[in-house]
């Protein structure tokens, strides 16, 4: 099931995106490049500021941790040196969480992290911030099977899937850049190096596997309706739709 994305729907922000997937709904807004406070100004690069607002209540240390992770990841894909002495401000508001989230017995921040990454990337794209690459991110959960060996990995499971597959042995979040490099990894639980390797392989497939060589540009159009396309293709489709929408006058006349 592909995530749903709505781009540039907030008119006062430079860029915005609403992202819905597996019961998670997040609104992201990007302002930038804007003026930076003297104290945060960096002489050679842009300052990136990430604010995560939880679905209920005010931010806690948990959100600060997520902000740190997002900040490190996004700073490495934004071409910060192209826009020095400016600020790129990313605000992410979690709108809704799946009901079963708390009961899944998995670290909730990890479940949220891939969705936050996607939302922030879409918002950055919508704001036309210069990026060096795109990113795709996925959650892999490895349930424990009756035997001591780990079970088959679940790719981007819903909260209900996790609940059904309980107990979960380990959870891994991977983020890959457009050129298939691993940008971020958060793994938690009990696992071995082999299990990690397998999870990484699965994640790479889900994010940016190329099927049968380099696909033609026209082929991507069919991805729309099809299921189980990889996330990078999904991202391309979202961006293509945005561009088509923006160019509709130009195309029509």
């Amino acid at each position: 099931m592909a995530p749903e994305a709505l781009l540039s729907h907030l008119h006062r922000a430079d860029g915005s995106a609403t992202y819905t997937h597996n019961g998670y709904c997040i609104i992201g807004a990007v302002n930038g490049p804007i003026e930076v406070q003297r104290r945060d100004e960096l002489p050679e690069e842009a300052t990136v500021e990430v604010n995560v607002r939880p679905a209920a209540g005010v931010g806690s240390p948990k959100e600060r941790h997520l902000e740190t992770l997002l900040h490190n990841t996004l700073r490495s894909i934004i071409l910060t040196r192209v826009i020095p002495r400016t600020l790129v401000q990313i605000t992410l508001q979690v709108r809704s969480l799946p009901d079963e989230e708390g009961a899944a017995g998995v670290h909730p921040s990890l479940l949220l992290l891939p969705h936050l990454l996607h939302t922030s990337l879409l918002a950055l794209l919508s704001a036309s911030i210069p990026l060096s690459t795109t990113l795709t991110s996925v959650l892999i959960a490895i349930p424990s099977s009756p035997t001591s060996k780990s079970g088959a990995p679940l790719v981007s499971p819903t909260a209900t899937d996790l609940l059904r597959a309980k107990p979960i042995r380990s959870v891994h979040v991977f983020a890959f850049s457009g050129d298939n490099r691993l940008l971020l990894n958060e793994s938690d639980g009990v696992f071995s190096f082999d299990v990690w390797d397998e999870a990484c392989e699965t994640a790479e497939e889900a994010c940016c596997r190329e099927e049968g060589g380099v696909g033609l540009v026209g082929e991507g159009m069919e991805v729309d309706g099809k299921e189980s396309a990889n996330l990078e293709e999904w991202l391309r489709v979202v961006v293509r739709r945005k561009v088509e929408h923006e160019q509709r006058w130009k195309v029509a006349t």
Partner: protein
Amino acid sequence: MATTTQSQPKPALSFPRSIFAAVSPHPFLQAHLTASTPAKAPLRANGRTAQEFRVPGVNTGSLTHCNGSAVVRLGNTSVVCGVRAEILKAEDAQGGGSDYTPTAEGDDDPERDTVEIGNLRLLVPNVELSTGSTPQHIPGSAPSTSAQTLITRIRSLLLSTHLLRLADLLIQYAPPAIDPDDPDAEPEKQVKAYWVLYIDIFFISIDGNAFDAAWLSALAALKDVRIPHAFWDEELETILCSDNPADARSLTLRGLPIPATFAVFEGRRDWDEEGEGEEINWVLSDPDAFEESVCRESVCVVVDCSAGRGSKGKKGPKDAVLRRIEKSAQRERVSFEHVGRPDTSGCWMIRSSARAVDLEIGALIES
């Protein structure tokens, strides 16, 4: 980068060491790593080889007013951790607490223990940076993002490793058998209160690798904890603690997860000139503050080697269990494949050194 001081054979302008480091930190470290002859392992600016960890110093039980405490030093990073146990009455417990109580030693359920400990908030870690511990820290302001990140990482690692047993933190009361017909009937134990562990981690100075130091101090302090014997007094209807030190007991921790942090240093960061020059990257273990400021990518691996300890009392590297990997992003040149794939040397380096550190520190804390 405009500074090309290291590539010139005879620099027209030369700086003393400290000024070179301050003016252009990146070339400074790169010059250090490349300067040595091929036969010798490259040395970092702090005199260590790339794989070398600082030898940790652990001193436990130094604070009098704590149930357990530890001072850990990693080079110039020094941290004090004190664990204080306080009683939380069952009726005051947040969320009410479910009826789940671990009864015997036999049915040990780490998952449920952790859920319960998390719901009741029986573990309260806190990180504080002292004034002057690091130049980035401004005293008198609210806890910085980095401190809050550290707290979150420590709390989630404490929970996800299932380190503590709920049975250790319960204060139970077994009422005398009332039923005269069936005197053998085992009276049901009631949970009267819980022990809440306040884990306060105080940084005296930070010279890189704050997480490892904080976690080691918390672990050593938890190993050092002695909780007095507490019991429900029926007549006074309150909880009393025995003042006999012989009654006190220590916590039985599950495993001994040890973190190892690495920084990835990218040589030659002329990122706007595509495909120019070969990539040289170094994986630096246990980075200090200077290296952390230069390196953008870092990897933290938490390993537990204690599970496979058999009757021989020997721990092999085969027994290592990973508890967590955290890898932060960087500029895209290096990928984690160096770490993840067995065919590259970096992988084995991180794997083996993470294990070596685990064995070494495990021995240190247990002694």
